[in-house]
């Protein structure tokens, strides 16, 4: 007889293999290169049994999304039959932003529904007024892109043309989108095949029992972790920026023997601006911070998620009502939620405290027409300084917390786009001073060789990444544009029309310092 550990490990490997199948067959660089996707295996209730670790922002949102979808199916008395797959990108159901398209499929074994496979991938464009569907001036969801409610994309192994047509008529690069959706379906198929193999080999009852044991084991492991944590309520507040206004995100974190409650009451009300974070994002960022403070290797499944309870009043910035705009919530607010939870945890366990990291993904969206008349469009995020840690200085020029994508090499960007880079180096001295200084941000400068429309969604231009234990703050972000020879200082969120020869210089924030500097004699 095999042990549950073997089935649990095999299940974990299957979720990873799904991720590889997706990455291998996807077309857009965003999925292939940046791995902006996640895959998981669910039991019949929608609980996550195993999830492959690809990108943190999908971590807990998957848990919310999976449950929402399964309960939506139940509510609507919709049963997914063998060979069906359901597609959804409504952030208020699937839990991140419109670009993250989720596809879920049932696993049938000997005629019975025996589990689900699910995956989510960031599609580069899901319609709406701007390229890339991250619109710095959106005031509602409708100004961001196409909302796909839960719909059967595949019926009895055949693509549902009606749903497909809605997609191809709205997504701006339909070819790429179709390729990526095919890859997502391929990933689910490989998952179904491999889980069915497990059922056959070990017996369905034993596999299900092993899944439950694995969840219980993870839960036990997570609670054991909490045993060593100081109990009590720990509070933290930090801010997002909307023009000159500071938008508060507040958390009150209660660490108990039997779990952690994160209460976001007191955070800003939702805003008519694309920085609202749906509850799935809030859940992810909270889960990320807590998971990062745990010392042992915790499997990613329901057993860990069960330890967390999130309270966020409906209508606030971290749990908005539909149709608040949410595209930037997934990339910027998510960082701030992670920041406040990490800050609260640092109070809970001062010996594990870390200083704040750069706190912005510095999203750059730009595009225009090439000399041959064809459109080009480019999306990039830029890393910054990582906060100082008890073990040493913060790392410089790195993606922190909720993102971990790769840069586009200068030599590749210059080959593909009408750009000439002028600088790409560390921003010396931008990390906060301290016993262990914060990591430095990055300076990335480029000239556009053709007229170009530029949009930026960033943050931390006014509120600095704070230090810990007396360390100083990191420097804020800055963007200068040299427009027809004249220098302009830009805010954190804007759109701008660049002329040929204009230069953009981006300086990302440094991390906060850790510990006070030794006193000078």
């Amino acid at each position, binding site marked *: *007889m*095999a*042990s549950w*550990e*073997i089935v649990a*490990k*095999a299940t974990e*490997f299957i979720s*990873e*293999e799904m991720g*590889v199948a997706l990455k*291998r*067959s996807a*077309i857009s*660089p965003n999925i*292939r*290169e940046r791995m902006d996707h996640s895959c998981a295996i669910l039991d019949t209730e929608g609980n996550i049994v195993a999830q492959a*670790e690809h*990108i*943190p922002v999908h971590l807990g949102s998957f848990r919310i999304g999976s449950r929402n979808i399964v309960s939506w199916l139940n509510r609507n008395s919709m049963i997914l039959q063998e060979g069906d797959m359901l597609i959804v990108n409504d952030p208020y159901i699937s839990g991140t932003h419109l670009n993250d398209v989720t596809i879920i499929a049932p696993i049938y074994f000997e005629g019975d529904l025996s589990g689900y496979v699910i995956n989510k991938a960031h599609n580069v464009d899901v319609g709406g007024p701007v390229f890339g569907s991250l619109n710095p001036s959106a005031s509602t969801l409708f100004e961001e892109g196409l909302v796909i409610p839960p719909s059967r994309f595949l019926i009895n192994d055949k693509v549902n043309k009606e749903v497909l047509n809605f997609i191809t008529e709205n997504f701006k690069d339909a070819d790429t989108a179709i*390729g990526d959706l*095919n890859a997502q379906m*391929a990933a689910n198929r490989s998952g179904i095949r491999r889980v069915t193999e497990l059922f056959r080999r070990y017996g369905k009852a034993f596999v299900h029992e092993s899944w439950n044991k694995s969840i219980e*084991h993870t839960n*036990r*492991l997570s609670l*054991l972790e909490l045993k060593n944590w100081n109990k009590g309520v720990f509070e933290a507040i930090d801010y997002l920026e909307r023009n000159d206004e500071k938008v508060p995100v507040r958390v009150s974190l209660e660490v108990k023997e039997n779990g952690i409650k994160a209460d976001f009451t007191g955070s800003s009300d939702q805003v008519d601006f694309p920085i609202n974070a749906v509850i799935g994002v809030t859940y992810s960022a909270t889960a*990320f911070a807590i*998971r*990062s403070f745990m010392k*042992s*290797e915790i499997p990613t499944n329901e057993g860990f998620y069960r330890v967390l309870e999130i309270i966020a009043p409906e209508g606030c910035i971290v749990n908005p009502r539909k149709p608040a705009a949410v595209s930037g919530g997934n990339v910027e607010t998510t960082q701030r939620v992670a920041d406040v939870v990490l800050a609260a945890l640092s109070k809970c366990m001062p010996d594990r405290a*870390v200083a704040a990291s750069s706190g912005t993904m510095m999203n750059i969206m730009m595009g225009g027409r090439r000399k041959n008349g064809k459109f080009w469009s480019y999306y990039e995020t830029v*890393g910054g300084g*990582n906060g100082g*840690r008890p*073990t*040493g200085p913060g*790392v*410089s*020029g*790195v*993606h*922190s917390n909720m993102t*971990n*994508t*790769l*840069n586009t*090499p*200068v*030599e*590749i960007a*210059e*080959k593909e786009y009408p750009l*000439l880079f002028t*600088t*790409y*180096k*560390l921003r010396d001295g931008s990390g906060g001073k301290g016993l262990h200084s914060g990591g430095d941000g*990055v300076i990335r400068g480029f000239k556009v060789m053709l007229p170009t429309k530029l949009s930026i969604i960033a943050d931390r231009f006014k509120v600095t990444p704070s230090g810990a234990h007396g360390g100083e703050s990191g420097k804020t972000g800055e963007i200068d544009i040299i427009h027809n020879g004249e220098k302009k200082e830009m805010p954190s969120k804007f759109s701008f029309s660049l002329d040929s020869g204009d230069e953009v210089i981006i300086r990302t924030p440094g991390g906060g310092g850790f510990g006070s500097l030794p006193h000078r004699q």
Partner: protein
Amino acid sequence: MIFESVKQTVVAVDVGGTFTDIVISADGKITGFYKVPTTPRNPETGILDGLKKYCNTEISEFLHATTIATNSLLGQHGLEIEPVALITTKGFRDIIEIGRQNRPKLYDLLFERPKVLVTKENRYEIDERVDVDGNILKNIDLGELRKPLEEIRKRNIRSVAVAFLHSYANPDNELKIGRELQKVIEYVSLSSTVAPEPREYERTSTATVNAALMPVTSGYIRKLDNSMKNFGSPSLSIMASSGGLISAEEATTRPVQIVESGPAAGVIAASEFSKLIGLKNVISFDMGGTTAKAGTIRNFEVEITSEYEVGGQSHHGRMTKGSGYPVRFPFVDLAEVSAGGGTIIWKDAAGALKIGPLSAGADPGPVSYGKGGTEPTITDANLVTGIIRDSMLGSEMKLNKESAKDALSKLGEPFGIAGEALRLVDLEMARAIRIVTVERGIDPLDFSIMAFGGAGPQHAARIAEEIGVDHVIIPPEPGVFSALGLMFSDWKYESRISYPRDLQESFGKLEKKMREKFPHAEFLYYADCRYSGQGSELTIPVGSTDVKLKELQDAFEEAHMKAFGFKLERKVDVVTIRIFAVIKRTSPKIVSSEHSDSAGDNRTILEGGKWIEARTITRHSLKPGSKITGPALIDEYGSTTYVPSGWEASPGNNLEIHLRRVR
């Protein structure tokens, strides 16, 4: 065993973490296989000791697989690299530190990147610029070099790397600086010479790793050469990561190509042996004390990749991006898992059974070795379940079964724990094989597994069952098979150009350059292609320099279809073209050896939770045409082959053992 070979003494030496394996052939015959302890700090000492003991003649050829480069980079065994300096384009000084901006671990706030190879004060900028088409936008003023050079020399830095933007498209500025440097600096590494291809971080990293390795590799080869004077100063060849031998001189100027020397030798051994027995699709599976490595051989050829990170960590066999130093050079495509005989068996805080990634290594080693190990390992599990015996053939070392059992008892009922741990380790290794097959678009069911390394033959059949493969080959001398592989290898030298403007002309230029150096070589041609806009390339073999762009594009589309299951309506870009000059060596040929009959004692083994009697024989007593039905154990010097129930073993014509699943 007898080889027919050239009438000279050839010595092949593979230095591993624990043992240095030596294979000697003299006058066409293999005179011996030996294992001597590795002396990691000064590997040449162990080699010399071994040769003094086992080889008392002049050596004409010395073939070598070495870990000196990897160990130095990782700072292992007291080896380390000297500080190096880096010269870059103005404004781009920190590319080597920023990397690709990602971090190697997602949920670890205390994550560290690999230690940066050039500290900030040793990075210098020169005002120069080349554009993507190779046009020089800014010429070099050599006067700018004066101050950096003063500082570099003041700091006693002996090795300097130069990496300018787009130098793969036009190396002139780099060459100018290089000429100046060479006047006063001992070791100079130009990115356009070491790895002329786009992606500034990867190229800079390759040039810097090369600069860092030049002093240590040169020193090692010098010492090795000196030690060989007593053996008639044989010609020295070193196995490159791409699976070909290179001269000592090439290894000292571009040492970056020998970082995976040992593992490459193993795969080459498997591919050469697959040719000998006429089996075209083989998974090579090499399991030793601390790691297991899987590679594929398709149509008798090894698979090559150009994406690799030296010293990187892998997560269940998949390389974690950003955990090591990228090196752009052809590598034999391998998946590596931290699972070997020394892998530690443990339980986590909530009581789940786990294996690895910690390893007891060679020191202290498994509990049963009695060298101070206290935590049970996979070898201990194989011992208490009867798979391996407590005294190894040809070795005086005795394993202590009782102490292994006691150590396992700390985790629970010892035999149950051992059985589960073995299943977990088999699952982990099956994973490595799935990565090099399923994840590369290959169906493992079309393949046979060739298992070697000390622990490979113990696990091979069980892993095959895990994947669904029905045929396993245990080659002769599995314990020293990689060293044997060196005997079969050819010399292979690489050269490349990126973004060729005219395919045929560029291939012609490369070939001409290589032919001047190697007039007697045969040539292999490759092109790295991708769909326009894609992020990575596929390496496509090309028949000759006359290749038409259209043919190459078609071949790429076919390969893309095979690997990823679809084609695109998109332009195909040729990013880099590559030539290998291959100079053939006379391969030894295996002929049949003497058999000596000796029956072993049967052992009781734990299989599927039950104790059963397994027939035990020694490998030398296997008779041609015989069939051994599992459960059975075949013991030999340095290894044991486990034939589980439901499997059958039979000797082949080239001294290999075939294991076949019969139910």
